């Protein structure tokens, strides 16, 4: 496909695409090479935020500078990914804690109640259904 561009937009879009690709690669390599599940949880966030973010910024610049139209779909995708990434990581960490860690392995929660993975929610400690 023929991309007929002037020099500055071409350099900008290319730089953002290469940055995004590199961070995606870094996230996947870290996901392959780190040793523990909790460490592995850390690596793909780079692919989520910086990798996909770089690609989305490159895409936005491309459509503004080359096609001449402003598109907000990239902002929507970025917002959705940035909103859902912490929720996903929290759920996966809770799954790992419930499967592999005991409550005595953890430091005290420092608050009035225990860790939410193991204890009943406040107000339901004496609920016989649990």
């Amino acid at each position, binding site marked *: 496909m023929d991309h007929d561009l002037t020099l500055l937009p071409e350099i900008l879009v*290319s730089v953002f*695409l290469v940055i995004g690709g590199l961070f995606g690669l870094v996230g*996947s390599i870290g*996901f392959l090479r780190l040793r523990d599940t909790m460490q592995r*949880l850390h690596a793909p966030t780079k*692919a989520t935020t910086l990798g996909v973010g770089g690609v989305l910024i*490159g895409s936005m610049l491309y459509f503004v500078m080359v096609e001449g139209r402003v598109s907000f779909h990239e902002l929507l995708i970025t917002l959705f990914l940035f909103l859902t990434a912490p929720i996903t990581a929290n759920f996966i960490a809770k799954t790992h804690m419930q*499967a592999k860690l005991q409550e005595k392995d953890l430091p005290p929660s420092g608050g009035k109640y225990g860790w939410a993975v193991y204890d009943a929610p406040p107000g339901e400690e004496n609920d016989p259904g649990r």
Partner: protein
Amino acid sequence: MITYAIVFAFACFGFGLLGTLWRMLAGPTVADRILALDTMVINFIALIILYGIWQGTAIYFEASMLIAMVGFVSTVAFCRFILRGDIIE
């Protein structure tokens, strides 16, 4: 030059997809497999957006948005099922 950049990013995210597929097949715990599925969805979104730039069309943003939503809901459903034995209580 932008063609080479797109090809480079395609190669990076394709390798990332293969790596996360390997982690999903080999991952020792269930949490690893769920995280690998989530990361595969992320890499796939990037690949679809790159294909949209390659073709010069904006029609693939809806597809990537839908895949992002389905990926999030499926990850939460997997985790809820492992955590509680039920998805919607």
